[in-house]
């Protein structure tokens, strides 16, 4: 057990322990106990920083399913370190914040259990080298996100949001799985590093582009990229700490991680460049455009997260062009986009985490998040105002905050890409800086909206009635730590650059030498360059547009409601539900008779059909043993009972005749020297008869049903066919020649399974898997009978009272 695997497992172990110990723990201590996990993991991970910065990587392999090449391989390099630090760092702050945010009456053990599950899964995603293991953890993050969004499951909106996020992210995940399998088909390995190593070999393969698109689908759905972003605003039904953690700082960045991770594999392709850049830019624009429209603070932040994720995504796309161009002193400049992406990734987690916590405080203290009902909170919540102000300024890209640095780098990257002449950038490349600039103006506007509509202006009278006051100190600690980072990163960006970002660049561009250009020196002031003019333009135009907002806000009403993405999503879901329901209802109509017909027809078609098709039927009477007289007698008894059963007038006669058949079979087993079967058949027959007798009072009186002749005829035909099939199989088994008989194998039962009774060694050893599953099925059937009867009884009770 090395430290890497311990890091992944600790949250899971803790999550498993919580349900066991939470009763013994006082409620208010649960959060503090849980807090120990991310804090200690964060501290352990920080010890990796100097070693990773030197260029070391750490990898350990544990064999899991070696026969399928699926091994539990942990791999820590610069890229995974960034993400793991975010996961544990923001995780610590969020848990600390939750301790104060969540009421003691909530089911805290569930909350922390899911949160730890998520943390472990997310760490698993970033530390896994094996793509199958990565996929498993990937889906686990979707599941834990589902559980957390539906944490307040008594609300309809929470459940709907959880289902939507699950549907979208898991569909993407399945697409990604298909992409991974294609990668395996091409490269013959599940190891990410080996796949990266074999890029030259696989890039010409026919499956390469399909795999690329499928994997991108996984990344885009997870990172809420257009048009899959619609789940993220709905996911805001989760408690605010969850939104801060999963839906802004970590989980939604898993897609970013995946794109960064796979850049060395696919980065050289034009499809990759345009898909990642294009989708990123559209998302950036669409997110910020929609954020302006909303009135709910959390909805604004949700769309702002969508847009910022698009920004990071587009930067990764721009950076991938360097992979295509290969390393040279003139092309290394294009890697700066990736550098900016990683930088902004960290910055976004700091300011957006703080902003979400700010909204949580407003919601908690004032009781609403609607900006139409808020205003003038500056004097009531002065500390919260500071958080909002710094967070929003950083998001808008203003100095002296870290968002300014990465935003400038973003502008610089969009401008420099227009100088290139590959991938037909020359023709439409000019759109890149334009969209980036327009989206940034919109970003600026909603940042101003958040601050001014919430904190400036006059206090609404109904707020004052509630006598609001500043949040407790504990709730302010976490956002202030993040705000502190926002400022600290602005003043010391290069510490971050050297120790954290540079090693990550080496993971994205493994073939590039570690030159100084790979980790450029970050300046707050770099002269009068296009990016500076762009920032100034953003501020001026943004202020102007904000001032005259009421004149242009009408454009949001142009879009027809019917064609919004959400409406389309809803239509797809409801139509498919209705369609599957109508199809299912057509054959699951509740008539037992019909179900029997399905079963018997498929039995006859499949079994008799196979026998006929393979011409496997052969009957050789010469091989059969001579038939004795008493055997004939038994056969006639059975025939008599069977025929009489058809004409039985009362149920008791039918039950008894059925018993005659069963006992006669048991006699045959005795005659053919199969004591085990005979014994079993006898007891089963007795128990069945007893069961019949107990059920007797529920059975309706047997009476001739008015069935049309046509149906009677077809039913009779089916019965005859089934009987004929069974009889023919019985006759044919002796002469079956397609396979060798396996009975010789069982004759060694004593040597192989340590038992002299072949029947039982088959049941308990050779084919124990069947037995085990049968036991489970029997148990489930028993439970089914029990619940059917008990539930019916309970329902009756309800109706009576």
């Amino acid at each position, binding site marked *: 057990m090395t430290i890497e695997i311990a890091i992944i497992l600790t949250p899971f172990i803790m999550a498993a322990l919580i349900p066991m110990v939470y009763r013994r723990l006082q409620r208010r201590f649960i959060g503090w106990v849980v807090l120990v996990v991310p804090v200690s993991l964060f501290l352990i991970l920080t010890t990796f920083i100097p070693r990773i910065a030197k260029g070391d990587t750490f990898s350990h392999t544990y064999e899991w399913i070696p026969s399928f090449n699926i091994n539990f391989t942990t791999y820590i390099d610069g890229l995974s370190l960034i993400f793991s630090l975010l996961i544990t760092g923001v995780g610590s702050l969020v848990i600390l914040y939750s301790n104060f945010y969540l009421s003691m009456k909530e089911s805290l053990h569930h909350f922390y259990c899911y949160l730890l599950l998520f943390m472990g899964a997310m760490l698993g995603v970033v530390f896994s080298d094996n793509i199958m293991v990565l996929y498993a953890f990937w889906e686990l993050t979707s599941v834990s996100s589902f559980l957390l969004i539906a944490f307040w499951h008594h609300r309809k909106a929470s459940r709907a949001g959880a289902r939507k996020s699950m549907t979208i992210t898991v569909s993407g995940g399945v697409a990604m799985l298909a992409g991974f399998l294609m990668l395996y088909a091409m490269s013959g390995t599940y190891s990410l590093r080996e796949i990266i190593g074999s890029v030259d070999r696989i890039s010409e393969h026919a499956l390469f582009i399909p795999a690329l698109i499928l994997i991108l689908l996984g990344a885009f759905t997870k990172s809420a990229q257009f048009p899959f972003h619609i789940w993220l605003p709905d996911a805001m039904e989760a408690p605010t700490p969850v939104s801060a953690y999963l839906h802004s700082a970590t989980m939604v960045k898993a897609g970013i991680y995946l794109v960064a991770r796979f850049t060395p594999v696919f980065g050289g392709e034009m499809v990759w460049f345009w898909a990642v850049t294009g989708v990123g830019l559209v998302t950036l624009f669409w997110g910020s455009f929609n954020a302006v429209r909303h009135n709910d603070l959390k909805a604004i932040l949700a769309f702002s997260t969508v847009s910022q994720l698009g920004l990071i995504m587009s930067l990764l796309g721009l950076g991938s062009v360097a992979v295509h161009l290969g390393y040279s002193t003139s092309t290394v400049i294009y890697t700066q986009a990736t550098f900016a992406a990683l930088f902004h990734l960290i910055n976004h987690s700091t300011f957006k985490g703080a902003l979400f916590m700010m909204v949580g405080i407003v919601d908690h203290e004032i009781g609403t998040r609607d900006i139409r009902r808020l205003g003038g909170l500056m004097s009531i919540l002065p500390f919260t105002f500071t958080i909002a102000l710094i967070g929003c300024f950083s998001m808008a890209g203003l100095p002296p905050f870290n968002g300014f640095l990465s935003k400038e780098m973003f502008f610089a990257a969009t401008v420099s890409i227009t100088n290139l002449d590959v991938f037909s950038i020359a023709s439409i490349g000019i759109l890149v800086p334009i969209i980036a600039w327009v989206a940034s103006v919109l970003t600026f506007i909603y940042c101003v909206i958040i601050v001014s509509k919430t904190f400036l202006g006059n206090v609404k009278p109904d707020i004052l009635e509630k006598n609001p006051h500043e949040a407790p100190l504990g709730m302010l600690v976490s956002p202030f730590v993040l705000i502190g980072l926002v400022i600290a990163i602005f003043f010391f960006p290069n510490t971050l650059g050297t120790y954290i970002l540079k090693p990550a660049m080496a993971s994205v561009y493994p073939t590039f030498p570690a030159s100084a250009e790979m980790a450029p020196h970050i300046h707050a002031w770099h002269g009068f360059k296009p990016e500076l003019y762009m920032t100034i333009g953003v501020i001026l135009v943004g202020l102007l547009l904000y001032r005259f907002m009421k004149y242009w806000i009408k454009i949001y009403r142009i879009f027809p409601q019917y064609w919004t993405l959400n409406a389309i999503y809803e239509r797809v879901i409801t139509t498919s539900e209705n369609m599957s329901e109508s199809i299912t209802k057509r054959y699951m109509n509740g008539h037992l008779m019909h179900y029997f017909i399905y079963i018997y027809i498929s039995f006859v078609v499949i079994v008799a059909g196979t026998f006929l098709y393979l011409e496997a039927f052969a009957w050789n009477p010469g091989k059969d043993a001579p038939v004795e007289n008493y055997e004939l007698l038994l056969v006639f008894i059975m025939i008599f009972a069977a025929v009489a059963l058809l004409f039985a007038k009362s149920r008791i006669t039918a039950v008894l005749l059925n018993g005659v058949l069963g006992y006669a079979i048991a006699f045959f087993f005795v005659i053919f020297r199969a004591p*085990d079967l005979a014994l079993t058949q006898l007891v*089963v027959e007795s128990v069945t008869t007893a*069961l019949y007798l107990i059920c007797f009072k529920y059975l309706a009186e047997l009476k001739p049903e008015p069935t049309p002749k046509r149906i009677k005829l077809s039913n009779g035909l089916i019965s005859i066919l089934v009987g004929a099939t069974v009889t023919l199989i019985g006759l044919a088994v002796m002469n079956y020649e397609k396979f060798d008989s396996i009975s010789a194998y069982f004759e060694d039962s004593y040597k192989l399974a340590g*038992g002299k*009774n072949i029947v039982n060694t088959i*049941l308990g050893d050779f084919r124990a898997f069947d037995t085990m599953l049968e036991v489970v099925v029997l148990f489930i059937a028993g439970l089914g009978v*029990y619940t059917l009867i008990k539930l019916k009884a309970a329902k009756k009770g309800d109706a009576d009272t």
Partner: protein
Amino acid sequence: MKINDVILRTVVKGVVFIILTLGVYLFFSGHNAPGGGFIGGLVLGSGIVLLYITYDLETVHKKMPFDFKKVAGLGVLLATGSAIGAIFFDAPFLSQTDLYYTFPVIGEKHLTTVTIFEAGVAMTVIGTLVTIILSISEDE
């Protein structure tokens, strides 16, 4: 279902003992002779059902205070657990093993892990059988 039948009661008193003994015998003889977990469980279960049919629920329940749903659940757990257990000894899922061991009083006996598996089967059969019959007959 209350049957007040002196003859049945008297006969059952003796017969149940024989049935239960037969069940236990069948269970243990299973490995080398006819018998085994399923049939043993079935015989034991039918013996218990016979008791329930003859006497009323309260009387039997006082003497056998088991929740038969739990017996069945425990059986499933035992069967699947013994199957999973093998993988901790670096053997494939569901591997069984056996050995000869000399006990102090009863002498040398053949011990095998199949017994655990079969015990699971037997308990599931008993539990399910009794649960089904009891819940149907309890339902008014």
